């Protein structure tokens, strides 16, 4: 092959590569744009309909500190958009991004395409901790109020997380075994949660129940700072170690020979994930499947390069929760929690992932 040919070949590869990168970045941008559009749409839609473009004006005015006379139309608009709908959307975005990140990290940590904080039982553990704190006023830790609930949720989520660490260390378990173990663990915690809730009275049960499913209904601004801080800190830490995640995907033995302390790294990451999951769960209840749906959908579109997969999944997860919340709030009258709609999406998604596999996850790996 002559020199000019090689050169043009190289040029060709370069342009191909650029196009390849460009497509991924375009996808991420598209996801972010969708999140913004959905958020504004979510602000605009509802029982009190507000024109789409008017939402920007209301938010802008609110930021500039314009106040209205109580009871006027403008005051109501401002109140509904900024105090009711906006916190809900912000929490939705944070939760979506964080849970999607959790899913994607667990999938590469455990080398298990079905892993997700929900399926492995971490969410159920967190939920049990939070419910114990709320219903019984019982705390495993002495910190008061919101932070106390969150701390409890974290302690609850540690149990499944430790279990997973132990299983992944002792048994070279197949993905299916991990999922089965996770199901059993979440069954255990759900029974405990149920026990606590049944001992509550009937009316309390209905409230607690709605909460347990995963909903953004109770969102207020006060919840956001703590949740945001923990989530952002967790994200930054996880993004910092994402190169090690790539190393881990080469397999435990190879990663060790490349100088990675696999066990310590896995333990550290899972505990970090527990903190992040607990921070979300203690405000929203169990929102399942985001960590499963978002990364897999994104992977189908842009492939599994972690550098792009992680931000894209986070944006996609946020869009997913905000979008399903619109459905939950508006299309279905009476409002159903987002968690339910996500499980309707997640069950079939799981089924699809299983059936798509040509070779099963099964046959216990040796």
């Amino acid at each position, binding site marked *: 092959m002559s020199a000019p040919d090689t050169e043009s070949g190289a040029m060709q590869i370069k342009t191909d590569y650029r196009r390849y990168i460009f497509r991924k970045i375009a996808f991420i941008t598209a996801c972010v744009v969708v999140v913004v559009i959905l958020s504004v749409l979510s602000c605009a839609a509802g029982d009190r309909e507000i024109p789409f473009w008017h939402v920007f004006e209301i938010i802008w005015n609110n930021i500039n500190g314009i106040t209205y006379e109580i009871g006027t139309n403008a005051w109501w608009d401002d109140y509904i958009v900024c105090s009711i709908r906006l916190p809900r959307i912000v929490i939705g975005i944070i939760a979506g991004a964080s849970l999607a990140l959790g899913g994607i990290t667990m999938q590469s940590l455990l080398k298990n395409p*079905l892993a997700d904080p929900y399926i492995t039982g971490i969410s159920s553990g967190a939920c049990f901790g939070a419910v114990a704190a709320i219903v019984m006023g019982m705390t495993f830790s002495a910190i008061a109020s919101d932070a106390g609930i969150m701390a409890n949720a974290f302690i609850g989520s540690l149990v499944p997380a430790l*279990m997973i660490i*132990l*299983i992944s260390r*002792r*048994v*070279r378990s*197949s993905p*299916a*075994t991990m*999922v*089965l*173990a996770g*199901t*059993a*663990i979440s*069954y*255990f915690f759900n*029974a*405990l949660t*149920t*026990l606590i*809730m*049944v*001992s509550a009275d*009937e*009316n309390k*049960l*209905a409230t607690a*129940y*709605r909460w347990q*499913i995963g909903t953004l209904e109770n969102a207020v601004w006060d919840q956001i700072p703590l949740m945001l801080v923990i989530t952002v800190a967790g994200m930054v830490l996880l993004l910092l170690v994402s190169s090690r995640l790539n190393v881990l995907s080469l397999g435990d033995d190879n990663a060790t020979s490349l100088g990675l302390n696999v066990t310590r790294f896995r333990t550290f990451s899972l505990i970090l994930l527990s903190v992040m999951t607990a921070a979300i769960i203690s405000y929203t209840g169990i929102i*399942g*499947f985001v960590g499963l749906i978002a990364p897999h959908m994104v992977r189908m579109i842009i492939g599994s390069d972690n550098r792009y997969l992680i931000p894209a999944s986070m944006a996609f997860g946020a869009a997913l929760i905000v979008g399903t919340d619109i459905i939950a709030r508006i299309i279905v009258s009476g409002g*159903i*929690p987002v*968690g*339910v709609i996500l*499980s*309707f999406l*997640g*069950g*079939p998604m*799981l*089924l699809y992932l*299983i*059936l798509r*596999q040509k070779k*099963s*996850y*099964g*046959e*216990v790996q*040796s």
Partner: protein
Amino acid sequence: MISPKYASLHRAYETMISKKVLFIVFCVTIAILMMVLSVSIGSYKISFIDSFKVIIDHMLGNPVDRQDLHVIWNLRMPRAIMAVFAGAGLATGGAVMQSMMRNPLADPYIMGISSGASLGATISIILGISLIPGFTGDLSIILNAFLLSMIPVAVIVLFTKHRSLSPIMMILIGLSIMFIFGATTTLLKLLANPGQLAEAYMWGIGTLGRATWENIIPVAVLTSICMVLLFRFSNSLNILAMGDRNAVSSGVDPKRKRMYYLIIVSLMTATIVSFTGPIGFVGLVCPNIVRQFIGSDNRFLIPCSAAFGSLFLICADSVSKTVSVVNMPVGVVMALVGGPLFVSILLRMNKNSWA
């Protein structure tokens, strides 16, 4: 005639077998004892001897104190018998599933059967719809629960028509159906008023408290038939547990057999669960405990799991009857006991014990 060369080997084999048989006899004896004992346990105080007398007197036709009779004969006896059959059935189902799926964590309960039952009951409680028209009340709850808990296995059978499924895929299909059922149940519960919600919620936990003389009959009959069938298949289950290739070379069609056993197990579990509500962990924990003592030979594992499952469920039910301070159905007790046991089993599992 055994040649003297193999006599010692033969003796060793006999000892091994007799040990296993002894263990089974031991389990059965304790299960029977606990069953009798559990009749005298509960919030209505009556001594062990007295409760025994009530039963004997009533059977012989002698007059008995009406209140004693009601508590012992109409409430506690059916409950204890239900516990025996439910425990035996669920544990047998677990043992069979684990052998044929070659996975120590397989359990018919996890495969969508329980969540199907919950969904069926919830449809009946909240929407008041009976899937088989013409039934109302408790009967429609039971029938709905039974019908829907058979759906996962039906779906798996349909899938196998189009492509061959590995055991793990079967389990995971069951799991994903479980999630879909769970979401539907949740949706229905949201539509309910607080009273209905509490009822559906309580149904979803699993209790033996609903047992009556009438409704233990179908459970007893179906569970017994299925258990006998499964026990008769224990040899080919042993072959299945060696893996599909070995099974084929031994002349067993693994795919067909597996389907066949799956249907039997589902039928049995669905019957139990539609009367008691979901009681978890029996099928997961009992066979694995038994396995520690007598190994994985299905000829012994199945009867022994059945006996141990009965024993386990009766004990759990006795605990739930004793702890009357909080409302603690047997499903919760099972989860509280079974959860930690499950964890310890999981941690003991090593690479070599399974495949």
